[in-house]
């Protein structure tokens, strides 16, 4: 344990971290939560750094300055790139944990092998394995999300994949256990690096079979790994702050991933090993009958919405891709001005990360009081005159409710089909993330508005404002 004054700071920091997360339960207090979290982090760093045995100040200041130099631009990325940034950041976190564990191991090995008790070795091995998996796994996930050309988007599957992966993991754990029991053995010189290499490989192989669109769930899981790595580091360094903060993180990742799995009606195992939306599966689906559909123009859509009294806008991933949120807010403003009740129906997994639509609409200055959760909006759907689907697909797919052979059967959806009229903006009749047909588009009351979401919504706005300058 650290000296008393350091522990006191750690205690206060722990309390602040807890408040930080507690305050996230309401948008009104959420910014205070960020301040509390930052303050806690500052206390933790200051108290640690202030200890007399910390002497390499120059070297550390350099690292901090570099960290700020890289971190600041990373905080200015477009919000559409937020998932990639989070993944990249987890990779850094995993790297840090792995490096600290490795450093501590070699330090003890050379200076006092008797310090390498079983407990500490177990913690070090756990830290290093979790850190390495998080590192490569997150890097790979970030690459998939960024749609880097040389990283396959579609799940890559091959025979015995899961068997191979599990064998690898078992190998790492096995070697780790052996090391824990014989920490100072001469073989350690190559066995410890072997564990590192296996864990790094496992991180990649774990992500390879998972489709790009499952990445948000994977990121949440990796978040919880990063937290657990910090906990293990805390056990190694006998540091309570690392344990508490890491445990909070671990819990957060766990709960977010569970929320996402539930909202997609899938199990954890299915996400990790199911290779959902793999090429083969999609192909079969594509063969299904292509429904009839009717296209319409933004102009007539504008006319009809103008006369409606109750419009529900259902945004999805397409709005994020097209960066259409600002146009959508203009549409919202114009309709409101004409006395139309406009609300946004937010599906928990619309887009590519939890809360994705909320951030985009908040960015465009839509007041969050007009964002309605799925359960509440479904109740009012029959009273809705126009449902405007903007780049959403799976989250309004009636197959989830009606077709029990569909892979998304059982996933709760926004019941756009219950509205009197439906307009759907998308670029083509291509399916969405789950790769399946959507019967809503061939429904009698549905009109398709083909085109990029930003452009189409812009056209509608232009029509409503009766002014060519708005677009």
């Amino acid at each position: 344990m650290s000296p008393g004054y350091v522990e006191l700071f750690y205690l206060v920091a722990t309390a602040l971290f807890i408040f930080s997360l507690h305050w996230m339960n309401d948008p009104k207090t959420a910014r205070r939560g960020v301040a509390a979290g930052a303050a806690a982090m500052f206390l933790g760093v200051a108290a640690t750094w202030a200890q007399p045995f910390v002497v390499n100040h120059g070297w550390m200041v350099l690292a901090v300055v570099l960290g700020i130099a890289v971190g600041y631009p990373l905080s200015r990325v477009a919000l559409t790139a937020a998932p990639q940034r989070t993944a990249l950041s987890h990779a850094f976190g995993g790297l840090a944990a792995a490096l600290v564990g490795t450093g501590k191991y070699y330090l003890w090995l050379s200076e006092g092998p008797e310090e390498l008790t079983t407990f500490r070795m177990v913690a070090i091995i756990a830290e290093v394995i979790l850190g390495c998996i998080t590192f490569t796994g997150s890097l790979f996930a970030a690459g998939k999300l960024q749609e880097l050309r040389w990283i396959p988007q579609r799940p890559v599957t091959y025979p015995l994949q899961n068997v191979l992966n599990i064998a690898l993991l078992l190998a790492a754990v096995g070697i780790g256990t052996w090391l824990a029991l014989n920490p100072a053995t001469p073989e350690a010189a190559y066995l410890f690096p072997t564990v590192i290499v296996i864990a790094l490989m496992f991180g990649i192989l774990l992500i390879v079979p998972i489709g790009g669109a499952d990445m948000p769930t994977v990121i949440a899981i990796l978040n919880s790994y990063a937290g657990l790595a910090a906990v293990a580091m805390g056990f190694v360094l006998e540091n309570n702050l690392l344990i508490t903060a890491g445990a909070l993180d671990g819990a957060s990742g766990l709960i977010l991933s569970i929320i996402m799995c539930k909202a997609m009606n899938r199990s954890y195992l299915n996400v990790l090993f199911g290779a959902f939306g793999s090429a083969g599966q999609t192909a079969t689906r594509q063969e299904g009958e292509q429904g009839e559909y009717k296209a319409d123009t933004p102009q007539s859509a504008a006319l009809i919405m103008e006369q409606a009294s109750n419009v529900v806008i259902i945004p999805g991933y397409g709005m994020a891709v097209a960066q259409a949120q600002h146009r959508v807010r203009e549409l919202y403003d114009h309709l409101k001005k004409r006395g139309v009740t406009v609300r946004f129906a937010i599906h928990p997994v619309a887009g590519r990360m939890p809360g994705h639509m909320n951030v985009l609409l908040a960015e465009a200055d839509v007041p969050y009081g007009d964002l309605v959760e799925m359960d509440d909006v479904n109740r009012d759907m029959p009273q809705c005159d126009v449902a405007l689907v903007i780049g959403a697909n799976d989250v309004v797919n009636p197959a989830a409710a009606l077709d029990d052979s569909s892979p998304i059967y059982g996933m709760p959806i926004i019941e756009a089909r219950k509205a009197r009229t439906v307009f759907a903006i998308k670029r083509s009749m291509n399916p969405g993330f789950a790769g399946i047909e959507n019967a809503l588009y061939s429904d009698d009351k549905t009109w398709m508005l083909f085109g990029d979401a930003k452009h189409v919504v812009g056209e509608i706005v232009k029509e409503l404002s009766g002014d060519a300058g708005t677009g």
Partner: protein
Amino acid sequence: MKRRRYLPPRVIMVLSAAVGMLGLALVARSDPVTVAEAPGHAAGETDYWPMVFVFLLSTFIGLGVIRRVSRLLHTPLMSLTNAISAIAVVGAILIAGPDYPPEIRLLGGIALFASVTNIVSGFLITDRMLKMFKRDRSE
């Protein structure tokens, strides 16, 4: 607003049982080794139990608090917890700071750089997102 309970007691029960089993495994191996062999640390070595308690209790707090975070804020929550996981910075300082051999300090320095990157980008982007959430336009 109706919130679902994502973690039924059963799940938590199983999790805590798992933690307990882990503990048991550690105990079974660890006690004799540490007490008998580690000189100079004889009294301190077996005191990892308080840390296990701290871990269990923080996990409970985390589950309780996160379950109540507003749905609206799940994206900022992800980046906030990402920033919090940069607490690894404390470990980085402990490796990079003391008068250790240079290769160890190098590892610590890289870890410090990586963690600071996360701290800075994590908190700033979270705050940037949260600034955008407004109940009505006038605020």
